[in-house]
């Protein structure tokens, strides 16, 4: 009964979405406020029914109702409860249900908290949001119904893919989806503005919190996925330039560009056409990501050989939204009024610079990801584009951008003084060169590492310089500076913190990629091997049974200079229900670095293939992304951006202080 209720709720959500798509648009067209007001309640009701459908599927999983095909294929009665719940989105159908649930959630939030937005803009945005929802409800219902029943239910399910039975992966998809789907709000706003033909600085102010929210979640989602791959896949890599990773990186890059261009639009009323285009492109890239992952056109862990009708369906959705929105853009964008003038050297100019490099970087990732597809479609040749391609194209493009990061916030709006900014960055540059020199002295064989460390230090100190300048640190009394720091807008803090996070992440990337020590050896009990400054001794093995697996633990003692530091026990798990094995790496943190021990084959004669790494600074990669997300959060909490904040009066709007 519960699956049928869920199915029915989903159909009702579709019906509500249809109403929400058609009625408010008719209202916008005829100027009928009553019709426009339909958008709000339908959006809220749509969330209710989407949530009901999702809850129904969750109940099926919790109860291990194997009469539901989806549950039988992806769950097992002995699985811990937490994984029974996360199994809901650990498969194609369930994850698409989560997708539409989050879409409905954003629609409802927009309806609930967007009361300060003009009625026509809100109604049109919600209508566009509903059009997206309709196509995805249809996709779920027609091609990926999670509620399909089995005539003869099996006694036991086939279990969730063991590599997904992990807390990291439990929260990764929801975070990522909130990010992906959150950009739909910016898209809907852009399409609505084009439909209405009115766009101004206030528009950017309304769009920014939504974009920022999506961006924060996408940042966290990508970082979570990266950390999961690092410890779960057992070979210590944190980014593989896998098509599916690229699929999430592209919207992130475009979304980051959007955040920055929306700033120009909000403060200076410039770059309108570009910002609207970016809003469209960002969500389009999210859709392309969904297509790449869900259609199975690319070889990847995520891309299973799937039902071709799904691929075609998503492709149709993709063509409809990207084609439709770009057509709308080409048709309506020329009507948009030109904005304020600015000199190339100015805050606006630096943000344009940022956008130029981020979008170009995004384009290189796009080419590298889709070129194999295009080539196969045209010549039939099958190729793979690996990490070296991205290192050679994306890498160099990010260098000028990173150098420019500290300059941006120090330039004035409209016309900036680059020499003045450079002067203020002297301390940062000096520290960067010092770091470069020291790194080179300590470890002189590569040029890349010292340069990378220097650049990272420049970004971090440069971001702090901005705060120091704004609080007049060292130029006035400390108390005065403190008072200024408290009075500083949260968005200024957010910018500085996010940029510091970027630098910290860069430190981690440089450390991990340049000084990573890898050791692969075959060991027996009693053998010792050295990794960096640690000695690793294999003590022995033991068998253990988990809830739905059995594992072989291999115990190591870690010594540093003869003294015992800790013991590590990486393991090999065997999952009977899927006849699969996974490797659980063992990690030891020292400072922000990690010792990483993972296993290969465990032989019958007691020999074990051991993979051990010393990964300097590796934790900074994820710590940096976390700091970036915190920066985003600070920005979001800025009073002027708060979603529910009272609407500033018209007169004030025109006179916002430029900062």
């Amino acid at each position, binding site marked *: 009964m519960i699956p049928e209720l869920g199915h029915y709720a989903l159909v009702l959500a579709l019906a509500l979405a249809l109403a929400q798509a058609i009625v408010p648009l008719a209202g916008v067209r005829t100027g009928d406020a009553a019709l426009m007001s339909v958008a709000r309640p339908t959006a809220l009701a749509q969330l209710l029914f989407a949530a009901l459908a999702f809850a129904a599927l969750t109940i099926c999983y919790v109860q291990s109702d194997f009469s539901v095909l989806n549950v039988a294929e992806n769950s097992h009665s002995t699985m811990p409860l937490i994984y029974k719940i996360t199994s809901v989105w650990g*498969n194609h159908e369930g994850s698409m249900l989560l997708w539409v649930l989050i879409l409905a959630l954003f629609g409802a939030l927009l309806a609930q908290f967007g009361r300060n937005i003009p009625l026509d803009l809100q109604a049109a945005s919600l209508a566009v949001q509903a059009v997206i929802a309709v196509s995805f409800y249809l996709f779920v219902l027609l091609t990926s119904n999670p509620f399909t029943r089995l005539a003869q239910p*099996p006694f036991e399910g086939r279990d969730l893919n063991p590599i997904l039975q992990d807390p990291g992966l439990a929260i990764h998809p929801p975070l990522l989806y909130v990010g992906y789907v959150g950009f739909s709000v910016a898209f809907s706003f852009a399409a609505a503005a084009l439909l209405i033909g009115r766009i101004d600085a206030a528009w950017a102010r309304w769009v920014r919190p939504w974009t920022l929210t999506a961006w924060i979640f996408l940042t966290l989602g990508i970082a979570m996925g990266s950390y999961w791959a690092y410890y779960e896949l057992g070979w210590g890599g944190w980014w593989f330039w896998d098509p599916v990773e690229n699929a999430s990186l592209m919207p992130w890059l475009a979304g980051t560009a959007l955040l920055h261009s929306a700033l120009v639009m909000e403060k200076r009323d410039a770059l309108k056409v570009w910002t609207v285009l970016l809003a469209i492109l960002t969500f389009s890239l999210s859709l392309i990501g969904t297509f790449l992952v869900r259609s199975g056109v690319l070889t990847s862990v995520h*891309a299973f050989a799937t039902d071709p009708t799904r691929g075609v369906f998503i492709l149709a959705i993709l063509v409809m939204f990207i084609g439709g929105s770009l057509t709308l853009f080409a048709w309506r964008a020329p009507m948009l009024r030109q904005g304020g003038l*600015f000199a190339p050297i100015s805050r606006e100019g630096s943000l344009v610079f940022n956008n130029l490099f981020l979008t170009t970087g995004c384009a290189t990732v796009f080419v590298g990801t889709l070129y194999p597809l295009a080539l196969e479609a045209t010549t039939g040749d099958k190729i793979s584009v690996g990490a070296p391609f991205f290192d050679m194209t994306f890498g160099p493009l990010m260098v000028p951008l990173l150098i420019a990061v500290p300059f941006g916030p120090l330039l004035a709006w409209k016309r900036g003084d680059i020499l003045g900014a450079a002067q203020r960055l002297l301390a940062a540059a000096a520290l960067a060169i010092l770091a470069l020199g020291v790194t080179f002295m300590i470890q002189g064989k590569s040029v890349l590492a010292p340069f990378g460390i220097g650049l990272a230090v420049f970004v971090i100190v440069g971001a702090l310089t901005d705060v120091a300048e704004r609080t007049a640190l060292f130029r006035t009394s400390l108390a005065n500076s403190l008072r200024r720091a408290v009075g500083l807008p949260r968005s200024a803090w957010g910018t500085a913190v996010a940029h510091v996070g970027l630098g910290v992440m860069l430190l981690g990337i440089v450390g991990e990629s340049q000084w990573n020590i890898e050791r692969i050896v075959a060991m027996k009990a009693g053998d010792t091997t050295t990794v960096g400054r640690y000695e690793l001794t294999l003590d022995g093995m033991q068998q253990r049974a988990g809830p739905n697996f059995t594992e072989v633990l291999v115990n190591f003692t870690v010594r540093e200079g003869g003294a015992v530091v800790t013991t590590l026990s990486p393991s090999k798990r065997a999952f009977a229900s899927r006849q699969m094995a*996974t490797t659980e790496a063992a990690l030891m943190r020292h400072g922000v670095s990690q010792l990483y021990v993972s296993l290969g084959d465990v032989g019958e004669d007691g020999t074990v293939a051991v993979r051990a790494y010393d990964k300097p600074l590796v934790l900074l990669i994820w710590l940096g992304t976390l700091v970036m997300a915190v920066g985003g959060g600070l920005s979001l909490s800025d009073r002027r951006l708060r979603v529910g904040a009272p609407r500033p009066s018209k007169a004030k709007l025109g006179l916002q202080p430029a900062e």
Partner: protein
Amino acid sequence: MTRKQRRFTLIAGGVAVLAVAVGLILHALDDNIAFFTSPTELSEKPVGPGTRLRIGGLVQPGSVVRPTKLDVRFEVTDGNKAVPVTYTGILPDLFREGQGVVAEGMMEPGGVFKADTVLAKHDEKYMPREVADALKKQGHWQTDYDKAGAKAPAGSPASPAAGSPAAPGAAPGASSALPAPVGTAVAGATR
């Protein structure tokens, strides 16, 4: 600065950055891509040493030899021809005889393929698409699998397809897919 000049600066800057990007892409595409071939294609059109390749097929049952714990030799077959492959390092957890595999590396002068990366299929439902295509080309693909997958009585114990090249065990149409976790590569091993 007039609007015209400003626009010109912007466009010139944009074009310059794009030109650099295009240059980088063309340069990188020159030597950082690997073509995918099947063992049959490789025997028909041999590729000289020094070109990066990906070979896909099934691990020939009975061909896996380990001279030492970390060295491994095996053959990749598409049911018609087989290519000997050597690899040093730790193989992915899912590497098994009779299962789908993709090896990336270069041909050595003696006709042996030296792999630096080995990718194995991920579970009984997953098969690298190139491998599936290569097997289909050789006629070793049961088309029932294409259809059966969707209707297959789920919950029936996953049939271990090991040892049977004609039943690669991949059931296209079967629904399991990961929910887009970032940061996953095909389970593999790289040296």
